[in-house]
C-alpha cells in the first residue's frame, strides 16, 4: 500500500520557488566571486543544490512518522556528534563547526535543526493534556537546551539561536498559559544581562554594541554593517547590475557570497530585485504554512510550522542584519548563501514538508 497518493501530489510550487531562490543565489555567488580565489564557489553550489534535490526526495519518501519514532536515537546521535565535533572537530575560522576531512566536511549543527524540529513535533504530539504545563516546558526546554549549549560552545551563537524559535513556535502553537509566558519574559529579562556579561565572548559583545551603534567602531564589527548598508543603499531602485556593484566586487562587503549575499544581491539588483526575492521567500513560507494547515495530524502540522518558523527566523535575522536592523550573528541565508550543509539541511526540511503533504489524504 503506497503511503501517499501520487507523485502528482508532490509540492511542485514549493520546488519551483526554492529552485528560483537557489538560481538567484548561484547567480549572486558567481557575481561575487568570479574574480576571486572562490571563483569555483558557484558550481560547487550547483552541485550542493543537486545533492539537495536528492536529499529532499529521500526525506520525502521516508514516512515522517517513522522518523518521529526514531527521535530518541536521532537525538542521542546528534548530541554525541556535537560533543565529538567539539572534542575532535577541525578548527575552521576559529570555531569547531565542521566534521570530516578538509575537502569534504559537514556542519553538524545544520542537521541538528531537523532533529530539533522533529523532537518538538513529537513531544507536542504526545502531550497528555491539552495544556502545555510547566513541567513540559522544563522537560522540552531542557531537551532543546542541550544541543543549543553544545553548538554555542563551538562557538556558533548564530546557529545555536536558530534552535530556540523552533521551540518557541512549538510552545506557541501548543498553547502556553499567559502566566508561564509572563514568567518566561521575566526570567529572560533577568538572565539576559548576566548572559551578556558572562556567557558572551568579547567579539560577540562587540557585535551587540556595533549593532546598537555601528558608527562607534566603523573599522571593527560595525564595519560589516556599515559596508552592508552602503552596498544596499548604493543599489538604489534598479541596482547596479550583475558584477557591477563596487561594494561587492571591491570586497568592501564582507563574505558577499555567504552571510552577506543578500547585501550583494541588493546592491546589484536594487530595490526591485529585493522585492522579487523577498516575494519568493514569502511565497515559499506561505506554501509551507499551507502544508501545515492541510497536515493530516498534529505531528505533521508541528513539523511544517517548525520549519516555517525556522526559515522565517533565518530570513529575519540574516536580511535584517543586511539592512542594519539586526545584529551580526553570522547565520546564512537559506538556499542562497554558499555552503553545502545549509543547502542540504534546508532541502531536507523541504522534503519533510513534502513528506507531510503527500500523506495528508492517507486517513
Amino acid at each position, binding site marked *: 500500500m503506497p503511503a501517499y497518493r501520487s507523485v502528482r501530489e508532490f509540492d511542485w510550487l514549493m520546488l519551483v520557488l526554492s529552485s528560483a531562490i537557489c538560481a538567484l543565489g548561484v547567480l549572486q555567488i558567481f557575481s561575487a566571486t568570479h574574480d576571486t580565489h572562490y571563483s569555483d564557489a558557484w558550481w560547487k553550489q550547483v552541485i550542493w543544490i543537486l545533492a539537495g534535490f536528492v536529499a529532499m526526495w529521500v526525506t520525502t519518501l521516508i514516512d515522517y512518522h517513522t522518523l518521529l519514532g526514531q527521535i530518541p536515537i536521532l537525538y542521542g546521535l546528534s548530541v554525541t556528534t556535537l560533543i565529538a565535533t567539539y572534542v575532535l572537530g577541525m578548527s575552521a575560522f576559529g570555531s569547531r563547526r565542521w566534521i570530516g576531512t578538509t575537502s569534504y566536511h559537514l556542519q553538524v549543527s545544520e542537521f541538528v535543526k531537523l532533529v530539533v524540529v522533529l523532537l518538538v513535533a513529537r513531544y507536542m504530539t504526545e502531550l497528555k493534556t491539552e495544556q502545555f504545563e510547566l513541567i513540559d516546558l522544563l522537560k522540552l526546554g531542557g531537551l532543546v537546551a542541550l544541543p543549543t549549549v553544545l553548538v554555542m560552545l563551538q562557538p556558533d551563537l548564530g546557529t545555536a539561536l536558530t534552535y530556540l524559535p523552533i521551540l518557541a513556535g512549538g510552545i506557541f502553537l501548543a498553547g502556553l498559559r499567559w502566566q508561564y509566558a509572563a514568567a518566561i519574559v521575566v526570567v529572560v529579562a533577568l538572565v539576559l544581562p548576566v548572559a551578556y556579561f558572562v556567557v558572551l565572548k568579547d567579539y560577540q559583545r562587540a557585535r551587540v554594541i556595533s549593532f546598537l551603534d555601528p558608527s562607534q567602531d566603523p573599522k571593527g564589527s560595525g564595519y560589516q554593517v556599515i559596508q552592508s*548598508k552602503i552596498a*544596499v*543603499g*548604493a543599489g538604489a531602485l534598479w541596482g547596479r547590475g550583475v558584477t557591477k556593484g563596487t561594494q561587492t566586487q*571591491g*570586497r*568592501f562587503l564582507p563574505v558577499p557570497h555567504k552571510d552577506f549575499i543578500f547585501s550583494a544581491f541588493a546592491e546589484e539588483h536594487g530595490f526591485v530585485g529585493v522585492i522579487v526575492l523577498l516575494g519568493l521567500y514569502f511565497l515559499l513560507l506561505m506554501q509551507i504554512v499551507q502544508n501545515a494547515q492541510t497536515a493530516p495530524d498534529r505531528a*505533521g*502540522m508541528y513539523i511544517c510550522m517548525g520549519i*516555517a518558523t525556522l526559515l522565517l527566523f533565518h530570513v529575519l535575522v540574516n536580511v535584517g542584519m543586511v539592512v542594519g536592523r539586526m545584529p551580526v550573528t553570522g547565520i546564512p541565508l537559506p538556499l542562497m548563501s554558499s555552503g553545502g550543509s545549509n543547502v542540504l539541511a534546508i532541502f531536507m526540511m523541504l522534503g519533510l514538508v513534502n513528506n507531510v503533504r503527500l500523506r495528508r489524504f492517507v486517513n
Partner: protein
Amino acid sequence: MKLHADREEQGLPAKGLLRDDTKFASGKIAFFQYAAVGVFLFLITGFWDLQVRNPQVYQERAMENSIKAIPVLAPRGKILDRDGRVIVDNHSSFSLFLSRENLKMEHLKPIAEGLNLDYDSLVARVKRFQSRGAPQYQPIAIKEELTPAELAFVESHKDADTFPELEVIHVQHRLYPRDGLAAHVIGYVGEVSEAELNTPEFARFHQGDVIGKDGIERQYNDILMGVDGQRRVEVDSFGNERGVLAEDKEAIPGKNLQLTIDLDLQAVAELTLENRRGAVVALDPRSGEVLAMVSRPAFDPNLFAGRIRSKDWKDLIDNPDHPLLNRAIQAQQAPGSTFKPIMLLAGLESGAIDDNFTVNCPGGANFYGRFFKCWQRHGTVGIHTGLVHSCDTFFYNIANRMDIDDIAHYAEMVGYGHKTGIDLPHEAEGVVPSRKWKIRNFREKWYPGENISVGIGQGATTVTPLQMAAAIGGMAIGGIWNQPHLVREGARLVPVRHGELNQENIKKVVSGMYGVVNEGGTGVRAHLPGIDVCGKTGSAQLVSNDALRAGFKQGQSMKDNAWFVGFAPCNSPEIVVATLFENGEHGQLAAPIVRDVIKAYFDKKQRLAQPREQIASLPAPLPGQLLRPPTAVQPPGASNP
C-alpha cells in the same frame, strides 16, 4: 508509521481524533502568517529606507570607498649643458604617500613603527597639511625611495581594514651628478617649507609641492617644474587598483633647460680645484655666458632629492666650511692685487697719471705719516712694469693721486659694488668704498689716507669671483660688459653696459696683464705655449665686513686669500677665468687652474675645428658618463700633452 499504525488499530477513537485534530491551531497559524507579513514588511521598510528614500548618500559613500584620486606627479625637466648633454636627470622610484581622504590619526603610530619613521615628526607633518588647507585629494608624502622591504610592508597593510590611507606612487626623482659636480649652479629641489609658503615667491605653491630651492632649480623653477595631474581609479578593499576610471588631469612634464655651462670645462675646473675651499668662474666675455662655475667644498644635491634627513641637513649647516655657500657668487673677498689692472685703468682714464708715470720702490713708501710696505723692492717701475711685477708702492701712489669717489666710479663701471644680475638666487654685491659708503655705513667722513690701501685692492673693497671674471673680461674686450648668465633662452638680460673708455688705455692694461703671465711676472704659472694668456695674481688679506665694523686696522695680520684672474687670447678674449682660494695656502695653484681651464677651452675648440670625419670618430659622450664624478674625467694635460 508506528503512530499511524496505532491509530488504525484504535479504529479512530474519538479521543484520538480529538488529539490529532489540527483545527485548534488554525488561529495560531493565521497569527503566524500575519507575523510573517509583519517581518517581511519590516525588512522591506529597511530596504525602502536605504534604496529608495536616500540612495544618493550610500551611492556617494560607495564611491568614496572604491574610487581614489591618485596624483600623477609630473617629472621635472632635465637640465642640459650647452652641448645638450644631460647634467641633471630623473630616475624612477616609489614614494609612499598618505591619502588624506581616509586618513586616521591613530594609524600613524603603527605606520611609523612599520616603516621606521619618527612618529612625532610624522604627526607634526600630517597636522601641518591639515592646517594648511591643501586640497583634500593631495596626499602627504611620507617616505621616498622605498626599499623592497618597505614596499612589501605597504602592500600587505594597505587593505581597507588595516591602513587604507597608504598609497604608493611612482615618482620621477631628481638624479644629480655625483660628488657635487656643478652642485651650486644647479642647486637642488625640496619640499616647499612652511616658512617659504608664507613668502610671496612661494605663496602659489601647495604644501607638499617639490620645488627648486636653490640655484638653477629655483631660478627656473617655473620652466623645470611640470604640472601634476590626477587620475581616478577604482580600488578594492585591499587598496589594489581595479581599473582607471578617468584621467582627470594629465600631468604636464616640466620643460628641459639648456645651460651655457660646458660640462668639459666644468669637469676640468672641478678636477683642478679638487676639494680646496674656493671657487672658479669661467665666462665668455663676448656674450656673458657662464662656461663653468665651481664652488668647493660642495654638497651632494641628491641628499635633497627626496626629503633631506635632519641629520644630513645639520651636518651641512654645521660644517665650518659652509658647503652650501656658492662661493662663486657669494664669497665677498678683498680683490687684492687683482684690483691693480682696474686701478691702472682708473689712473690713466682719470688723468691722475700718464704713460710716463714712474715710481721708485724701495720696498714701501710713507703716506700720511705711515709706512706702507711693498712685498718686494722693485726699484723704478712704470705703468707696464708696475703691473707686471705687481708693485704695491706704484699703486699706492696712483691711489694717493686720486679721489676715492673717482676710484669708486671706475670700480663700479667694471661691475664691482653691485650684483652682476646673473640668473641665480642669493648673489652678493660686494663693496666699493666711497665717501657716501663711509657715511652710510660708519657715519664718518672719508680720510684721504684710506685711499692708499684701496689702491692695492685692500681696505673695504670686496668682490665675488663672478664679479671679478665679468669685470676683467668686460674690460679686456674693450669695456663692454655683458650680463653673466647661465641660460641662453629665456634669461632676462640687462642691456650691455658700455664703458666710455679710451681703447688705448685698455690696451696698456692688457699688455701689463700679458706681462704678468709671459714676461716673468707674478703669474708665470698660467703660461700656455701657443696661447696668449693674460692674467693677474692677487693675494688679499682676509677681511670680513664684521671685522671692519669692529674697527679693523690696517696692518693687522690675517691669513691671505689667493686670486688669479686670466683671459685669452689677449687681443680678442674668448674666455675669462677667475679663481679664488680662501685661506690660500695653495696660492701658487690659483694660476694653474685658470691655465688648465683656458687650455681645455682651446683644446676643445681645436678639436671641433677638425674635419667632420675625425669628429665622428671621437667617442660620443654618453649621459651615464657625464654623471660620473669629475675625477673620472681625463685631465686635459693627459689627453693632449
